[in-house]
């Protein structure tokens, strides 16, 4: 009982916590105030509460596909925001002064969206135990431990990445954020398949014997790069297209930056 809570909450917390530690590193690099964290978390918890409270009517939307489409929309928004954030990091590296207020709200909205989805699930999980008082306490203790482990892992990531030299940090961050946004797109694709908006297919491969999705490493890779043991063709296609789009955008931004640089020199 206690252990289950640890695992469930760890899974939910991990994704948001990893993203937040990356954002913290980069807001330091981009000289942006870190107060988006508090605002994002508080507003995110509020909207998670609203989402959790209205899960039933939301599920009934659009002929019963409301939950899938809402989650997919949240995931796709995060993917797009990460794409924009990546271009901000590159602009900054090129020395261009881009609106810091926009980057600030971008980070805040990203945190709100991620916490809305993960937080509502946690709240519903805990709410289920209010029917059995003694278990609720155990579930709560387990949740605190799970959240603690999730936060610890993200703190480790924070210091690991934070100690990289600045020249390495930006490319590493861009790559990790690209992979996370690919994972978001892959999750959204899964929602569309579940709601039968995209067709379900036989898995393209099965790597579950090699690395199970429910193992600790599997969960960590799921949060970081959207690892799936048995993905379908569409999921793989959408995942890789999102990576290609991100790579294209990054290339264009870099290319134009260089063109402007050489123009200035002339």
């Amino acid at each position, binding site marked *: 009982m206690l252990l289950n809570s640890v695992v469930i909450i760890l899974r939910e917390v991990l994704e948001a916590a990893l993203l937040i530690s990356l954002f913290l590193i980069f807001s330091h690099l981009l000289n942006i105030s870190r107060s988006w964290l508090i605002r994002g978390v508080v507003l995110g918890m509020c909207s998670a509460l609203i989402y959790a409270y209205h899960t039933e009517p939301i599920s009934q939307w659009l002929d019963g596909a409301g939950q899938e489409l809402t989650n997919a929309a949240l995931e796709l928004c995060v993917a797009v925001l990460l794409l924009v954030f990546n271009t901000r990091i590159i602009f900054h590296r090129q020395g261009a002064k881009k609106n810091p207020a926009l980057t600030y709200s971008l980070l805040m909205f990203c945190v709100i969206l991620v916490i809305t989805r993960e937080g509502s699930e946690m709240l519903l999980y805990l709410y289920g135990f209010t029917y059995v008082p003694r278990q609720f306490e155990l579930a709560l203790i387990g949740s605190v431990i799970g959240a603690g482990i999730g936060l610890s892992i993200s703190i480790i990531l924070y210091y690991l990445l934070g100690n990289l030299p600045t020249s390495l940090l930006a490319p590493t961050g861009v790559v990790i954020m690209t992979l996370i946004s690919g994972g978001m797109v892959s999750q959204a694709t899964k929602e569309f398949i*579940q709601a039968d908006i995209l067709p379900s297919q036989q898995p393209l491969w099965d790597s579950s014997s090699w690395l199970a999705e429910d193992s600790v490493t599997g969960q960590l890779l799921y949060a970081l790069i959207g690892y799936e043991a048995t993905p379908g063709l569409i999921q793989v296609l959408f995942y890789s297209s999102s990576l290609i789009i991100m790579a294209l955008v990054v290339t264009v931004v870099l290319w134009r930056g260089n063109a402007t640089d050489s123009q200035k020199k002339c």
Partner: protein
Amino acid sequence: MNLIIKSLPDDLLKKAFRTALVGVSLALLLLITATVNAETQVMELEIKNHLFNPAELVIPANTKIKLLIYNRDPSPEEFESYELNREKIIIGNSKGFIFIGPLAPGEYPFFGEFHIQTALGKVIVR
């Protein structure tokens, strides 16, 4: 020369974006019309006292199934399966559905994430 370089990506980007948008929407439309035409079999699954009933769901191979899940408990449950790649919250005393299949013959375990000790089951594809 630099002016040309600078103006090129903008045009290219717009064109590429437009083509990509048309391509993606066409592909989605094709996929949606293809799935709408298929006749879908409906099967039911019940959650009661944090147990799945039936705990073993036998479905035919290579067939799409609409799985209606009733949660008869007051507490919420999350239907989840790594093998099926499915995850859906069903609030207490309500119902929801997910689509599964077409699947290859085999066993696909699923569980209720919120009551993982008791809420266990599997889809058997024959």
